[in-house]
């Protein structure tokens, strides 16, 4: 089997036809990890023994005729989702020794399917970053050019799938953390509607933005994973009621482009790759129109106020008392401040400080409350645009993957999120599909094409995404 091309769909067919066993499939992936991951560093921990045991159990399910969509499929899990009895660190030193005391709902669902867990993947600490360089355990490298970043924050998950070290993966997307690394690694990254997938057992970063989503080599694979993990969960108060009838995606043919918004900061060949995909959609019968989303120009500012505000609140729970790293001190106050200083990395500290500032008395009106108000303008812009179009398309990133260490200044890294953060602010679903390539230093690097749909219109994304794959 050629792991660089093998999809979940093809593996399902072969497993059910008994062409190879789930154990063979898992062993092949474990071999690939052993061979390649020293260079890529997608995984923080690989669970060889339990993965084989899960594969054997999956083979038994298949033999009994009880196979489900993901039975025996080897998957990688981002290090911010809890698996009972396993370490979960969010790539932070403060959780280096933390062992999960329960399963995240998405994990429970994957276990019911008989999926195989290969290991936990690298990420930016607490999902704060755009390149996986903020991991406390060292950066992940882009499989297409190991001197470059894989994107982030789910860079470990997307690199693992791209390098054939997992058939699919789960990640989370707070401001583009699935779509942008998927674009950089040449795989599909899918962020569902806010509330469509339970976040129970996901280590929270910014709760009004965080969403668990999926990574696959194809749109179909990302969709299959989504179907396995979606659904209402009483343990997540933000989870939506189960969706009723699927939309008739077939009839949804009008696509909008916010051209005004695309003008700035795009590398010319990245823009050309985007336009060429748009042209191929037009050829496939889609109607392409311009849409205006005037409030989008404030997206980055709104995001980089709301995100740190919520991060500073969520990370207050890491205090050296209940779990995680604890630095002994004379007073309880010193235990807090010394444990947090020792456990959090530089970007996490910056977000906590900025968040504390924008929430502080005297500044909360000008920053946090203003940002919340402008966020509503952005949501309204999307709602209005979706009255006349079925989907909106944008690049997943203004630039190709950059060199590791190239963007040392935090603000230049924030600016790279321009095309992905509006989606999280509006809570709508979006997908990044590989389409085209650009050349950097003689190496061919993938480009991601982003499709955005109205709330709960995921089927539209899968339909357009598949049409792009076929083009």
């Amino acid at each position: 089997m050629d792991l660089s091309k093998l999809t979940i769909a093809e593996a399902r067919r072969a497993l059910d036809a008994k062409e190879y066993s789930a154990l063979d499939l898992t062993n092949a992936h474990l071999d690939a990890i052993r061979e390649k991951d020293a260079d890529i560093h997608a995984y923080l921990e690989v669970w060889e023994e339990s993965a084989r045991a899960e594969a054997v159990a999956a083979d038994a399910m298949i033999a009994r005729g009880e196979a489900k969509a993901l039975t025996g499929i080897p998957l990688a899990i981002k290090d911010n989702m809890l698996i009972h009895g396993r370490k979960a660190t969010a790539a932070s030193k403060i959780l280096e020794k933390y062992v999960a005391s329960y399963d995240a709902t998405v994990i429970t669902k994957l276990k019911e399917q008989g999926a195989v867990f290969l290991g936990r993947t690298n990420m930016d600490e607490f999902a704060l970053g755009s390149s996986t360089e903020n991991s406390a355990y060292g950066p992940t490298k882009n499989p297409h050019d190991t001197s470059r970043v894989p994107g982030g924050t789910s860079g470990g998950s997307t690199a693992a799938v791209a390098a054939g070290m997992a058939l699919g993966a789960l990640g989370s997307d707070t401001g583009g953390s699935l779509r942008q690394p998927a674009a950089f690694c040449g795989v599909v990254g899918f962020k569902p509607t806010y509330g469509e997938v339970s976040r129970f057992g996901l280590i929270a970063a910014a709760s009004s933005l965080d969403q668990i989503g999926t990574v696959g080599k194809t749109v179909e694979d990302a969709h299959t994973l989504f179907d396995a993990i979606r659904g209402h969960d009483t343990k997540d108060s933000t989870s939506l009621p189960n969706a009723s009838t699927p939309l008739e995606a077939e009839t949804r043919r009008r696509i909008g482009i916010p051209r005004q918004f695309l003008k700035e900061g795009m590398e010319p060949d990245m823009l050309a790759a985007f336009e060429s995909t748009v042209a191929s959609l037009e050829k496939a019968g889609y109607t392409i129109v311009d849409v205006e989303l005037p409030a989008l120009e404030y997206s980055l500012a709104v995001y980089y106020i709301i995100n740190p505000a919520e991060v500073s609140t969520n990370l207050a729970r890491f205090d050296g008392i209940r779990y995680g790293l604890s630095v002994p001190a004379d007073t309880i106050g010193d235990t807090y401040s010394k444990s947090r200083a020792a456990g959090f990395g530089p970007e996490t500290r910056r977000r906590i400080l900025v968040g504390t500032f924008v929430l502080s008395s005297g500044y909360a009106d000008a920053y946090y409350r203003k940002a919340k108000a402008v966020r509503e303008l952005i949501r309204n812009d999307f709602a209005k645009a979706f009255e006349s179009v079925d989907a909106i398309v944008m690049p997943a990133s203004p630039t190709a993957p950059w060199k590791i260490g190239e963007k040392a200044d935090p603000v230049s890294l924030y600016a790279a999120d321009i095309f992905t953060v509006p989606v999280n602010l509006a809570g709508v679903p979006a997908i990044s599909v590989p389409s085209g390539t650009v050349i950097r230093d003689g190496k061919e690097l993938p480009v991601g094409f982003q499709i955005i749909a109205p709330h709960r219109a995921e089927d539209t994304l899968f339909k357009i995404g598949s049409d792009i794959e076929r083009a």
Partner: protein
Amino acid sequence: MTVDIRSLAKLARLDVTDEEVAKLEAEIPSILDFVETIKNAPTSLSIATPALRNVMRPDENPHESGTYTKELLDAAPAKTGDRIAVKQVISRKK
């Protein structure tokens, strides 16, 4: 804009070294400058009707006491018996 990093760090319960303060004194204002454009956005606070609201689950069907105690306590850095141990919180100091 200048930001008093030390008092901010104190509010955030985060120890900072002198070296870090010097670095953060440049970084934090540059991040705040980056988000400054929001001030020009055409909206007022009064029109904000947030789409999200807090939802609480009903407080019912409690699990049997002690079911998760050991597992949760095992994560704690310091414990005494079935309790998490902490330094004194309230003191008589004048």
